[in-house]
C-alpha cells in the first residue's frame, strides 16, 4: 500500500510538472461544454430566401410580409429572375426560393387555385425540409387569414404534448452527449499516452522490474487520471446545471456513481490501447483519429441509433459513450432511478473488466 501511494505521487508529479497539458486537459471540457452547449442547435433561423413574384398583388404581398416577419426567414431582395436562381444557390446566397405563379391573385379568385413552388437547396436535405415546412405552414396560415369566415367542415384538431423537454432545449440532448464524449476521449488519451510514453522512454521496463505486481503498477498509473477525470466531470455538471440550466431530475449520487463507472471504463480502454502498441504516435492516432468521429456519431446524441443500418447498430454497442449517454439522459433529464439504468451500467462494468483483463494478459506476456 505504501509503495502504491509512492507511485501515485510520482505520477502526480509528472502531471503537475507539465502545466501546459494540465491546463488543456482541464480547460478543454469547460470550453467545449460552453461552446457547444450554447452554439449547437438543429433549429433553422434566419435562412435567406428569394421571392419570385411576377405579379405583385394584395395576396402575394400579404404572404411575403408574413414570410418576412417570421424569424425563420430573411428575404434576399437582389434576386428577381428565375435565371438568377441557379447562381444564387451555387454561391450559397439563398436556401430557398418562393416562386409565385403569374397573376396569382386573379387565379386564386377566378380559378380557385393558385400555385406556389418552393425551390430548395437540397444539398443540405435537412435544412431544405425544414425551411420548406416552415414556409408551407406560414403560407397556410396566411390563407386561413385571407378567408376568415370559412370554417373547414369535419375538422380534426391535433393537440400535441411534449414530454421531458417541453421547451425543446437543445442543451438537454447535447450536454449529456458532450459529457459522454469528452470524458471518454480525454480519459482514454491520458492513460494510453502516459503508459506508452513510459514504454517509449524505457522506464516501463524499470517499473516492471520492480517488485510491484503489474496490477498495482497499472492502478497507480491510472488513479491520478481518475481523479482528474472526476474533477472534469464535476466541472461539466456544475456548468451544465448553472449555466445551461440542465436539470438533475434524478439522484445526484446515482449520477456520480455511474459516472465513476464510466470513467473507469474509459481509463481501462486507454489501458487496453496502450497494451497493443509501443509508440505514442500510434496510441494517439488510435485514440484521436480513430475514436473522435466514431464516438461523436455512434453514441446516439447526434443521430438516432435506430436509424442506422443494422451492422452499425451492432457496432455502436461497443462504443462506451453510447451507454453512458443513455444513462445520463435517464437520470438528469427524465429523473429515472436505478431500475432504468442497471442494464447499461452492467454493460459498462463488463467492458471495464474485459479491457483490464486483456491488458493485464498482454503486460504479463511482455514480462515473461
Amino acid at each position, binding site marked *: 500500500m505504501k509503495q502504491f501511494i509512492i507511485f501515485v505521487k510520482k505520477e502526480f508529479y509528472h502531471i503537475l510538472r507539465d502545466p501546459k497539458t494540465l491546463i488543456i486537459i482541464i480547460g478543454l471540457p469547460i470550453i467545449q461544454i460552453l461552446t457547444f452547449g450554447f452554439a449547437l442547435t438543429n433549429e433553422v433561423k434566419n435562412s435567406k430566401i428569394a421571392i419570385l413574384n411576377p405579379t405583385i398583388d394584395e395576396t402575394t404581398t400579404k404572404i411575403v410580409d408574413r414570410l418576412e416577419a417570421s424569424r425563420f426567414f430573411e428575404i434576399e431582395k437582389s434576386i428577381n429572375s428565375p435565371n438568377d436562381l441557379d447562381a444564387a444557390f451555387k454561391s450559397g446566397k439563398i436556401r430557398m426560393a418562393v416562386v409565385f405563379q403569374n397573376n396569382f391573385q386573379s387565379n386564386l379568385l377566378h380559378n380557385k387555385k393558385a400555385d406556389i413552388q418552393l425551390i430548395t437547396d437540397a444539398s443540405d436535405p435537412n435544412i431544405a425540409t425544414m425551411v420548406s415546412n416552415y414556409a408551407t405552414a406560414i403560407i397556410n396560415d396566411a*390563407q386561413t387569414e385571407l378567408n376568415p369566415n370559412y370554417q373547414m367542415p369535419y375538422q380534426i384538431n391535433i393537440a400535441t404534448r411534449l414530454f421531458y423537454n417541453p421547451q425543446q432545449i437543445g442543451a438537454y440532448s447535447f450536454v449529456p452527449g458532450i459529457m459522454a464524449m469528452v470524458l471518454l476521449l480525454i480519459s482514454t488519451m491520458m492513460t494510453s499516452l502516459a503508459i506508452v510514453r513510459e514504454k517509449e522512454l524505457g522506464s516501463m521496463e524499470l517499473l516492471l522490474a520492480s517488485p510491484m505486481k503489474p496490477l498495482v503498477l497499472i492502478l497507480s498509473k491510472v488513479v491520478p487520471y481518475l481523479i482528474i477525470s472526476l474533477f472534469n466531470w464535476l466541472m461539466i455538471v456544475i456548468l451544465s446545471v448553472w449555466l445551461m440550466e440542465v436539470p438533475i431530475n434524478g439522484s445526484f449520487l446515482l449520477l456520480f456513481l455511474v459516472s465513476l463507472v464510466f470513467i473507469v471504463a474509459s481509463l481501462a480502454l486507454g489501458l487496453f490501447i496502450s497494451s497493443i502498441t509501443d509508440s505514442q504516435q500510434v496510441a494517439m492516432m488510435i485514440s484521436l483519429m480513430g475514436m473522435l*468521429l466514431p464516438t461523436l456519431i455512434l453514441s446516439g446524441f447526434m443521430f438516432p441509433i435506430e436509424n442506422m443500418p443494422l451492422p452499425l447498430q451492432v457496432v455502436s454497442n461497443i462504443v462506451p459513450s453510447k451507454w453512458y449517454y443513455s444513462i445520463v439522459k435517464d437520470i438528469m433529464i427524465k429523473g429515472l432511478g436505478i431500475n432504468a439504468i442497471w442494464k447499461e451500467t452492467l454493460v459498462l462494468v463488463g467492458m471495464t473488466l474485459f479491457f483490464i483483463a486483456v491488458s493485464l494478459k498482454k503486460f504479463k506476456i511482455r514480462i515473461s
Partner: protein
Amino acid sequence: MRTILFLLEKEFAQIFRNKAILRLIFIMPIVQLIMLPLAADYEVKNINCSIIDHDHSPYSRRLIGQIEASTYFKLVDYQQNIEGAMPKLEKDKSDIILEIPQNFEKDLIKEEKATLLIAVNAVNGVKGNLGAAYASGIIRTFNQNIRMDWMTFPKMNPIPEIRISSIPWYNKMMSYKIFMVPGILVILVTMVGSFLSSLNIVHEKEAGTIEQINVTPIRKHHFILGKLIPFWILGIVVLGLGLIVSYIIYGIVPVGSLFLLFSFAAVYLIGTLGLGLLISNYADTQQQAMFFSFLLMMVFILLGGLYTPIESMPEWAKVITKFNPAAYFIEVIRMIVLKGSGLKDILPHFFAIGCFAVVFNLLAIWSYRKQI
C-alpha cells in the same frame, strides 16, 4: 533547394518505414468514410409509435391502419390508457403516443370537429418532432379523405386553394448521405494534415534529433518546407482516395470541377499544415500537441457546420466560425461536389483560406527557433 530534396527523401523513408502509422493514415479515413455516413443519417424512419384507442370505431381503426401502412412508423404498442403507454416513452422505446379519444368518430361526424392527442418524447429531439410532424401529415390526409366522403356533393363553390409544391434542387432524392460524405472527408483530410504534421515535429523534439538539425546550416524555411510537403501530399492523396471511395460506395460524382476542388484543397492543406507546425513549435511533448489538436478538431467539427447549420448559431459562435478554416472547406466541398459551384462562387472562401495559409505559415516560420 537541393536540401529540400534530401529532407523529403528522409521524411518519406520514415513515413513508409512505419507501417503501423501508414496503415492508420490510409485505412482509418477510408473505413470511417465508408461507415460513418451510413450512421450519420437524419432521414428518420422507424419512428416508434404507441397507440391508445379509446374509440374502437371504424374511423379510429382506419386512421391506425394508415399510420401502420406508412414507412415512417413502427407500431410498438397498443395500450388501454396513457398510464400504460408512458413506461415505453420513458425508456425511449417509443417516440410518440397517439391517443384517440372516446367518441372520436361520433364527434367528427356530428359536431364536425374532433381532437386527437399526440404525446412526444422530446428528449429525442429530432425524432420526436419529426414523428409528430409526420403523424400530423398522415392525420391531415386522413382528414381530407373523410371530408371527401361526406362532401360528396359537387363542389360548386370550393374554397380558394393555394397549392404548394416543394421542389428540391441539387439533391433530388434528398439524401442525407450525399450531404455528409464530403463533410466527413474534409475532417479526415484535416486530421491527416494538421494533426500528423504537428506530431511529427514534436516527435523530433522529443527524440532529440531536432537539436542535431539545428546545428546544421539548414535554413528555417527549408526545414519547414521539408516538413510541409510530405504531409501536403498525404493530404491530397487521402482526399483523392476519399473521392474515389465516395464514388464507389455512395455513387457521388462531383458536379463541379475536380480541378477547382483540388486547388482549393491544396491551399487549405497549406493552411492547416501551417497550423500544425505552429502547434508543434509551442508544444514540448507529443502529449501536449495531441491534446491541443484534439481541442482544435472538436472546434473544427462542431463549429464547422458539419452537423448543425452555422446560420442558426448565436452571433459569437458565428464569429468563431469565421476563423475556422474547416468551416470554409466543408462549405466549399459541398458547393462544388453537390451544386457544381464555380470559381466565382467560392472566391470569398478562396480568399479567406489563402489568408489563413499565409498567416499560419508566416507565424510558424517566425516562431520556429533554431536558437534558444
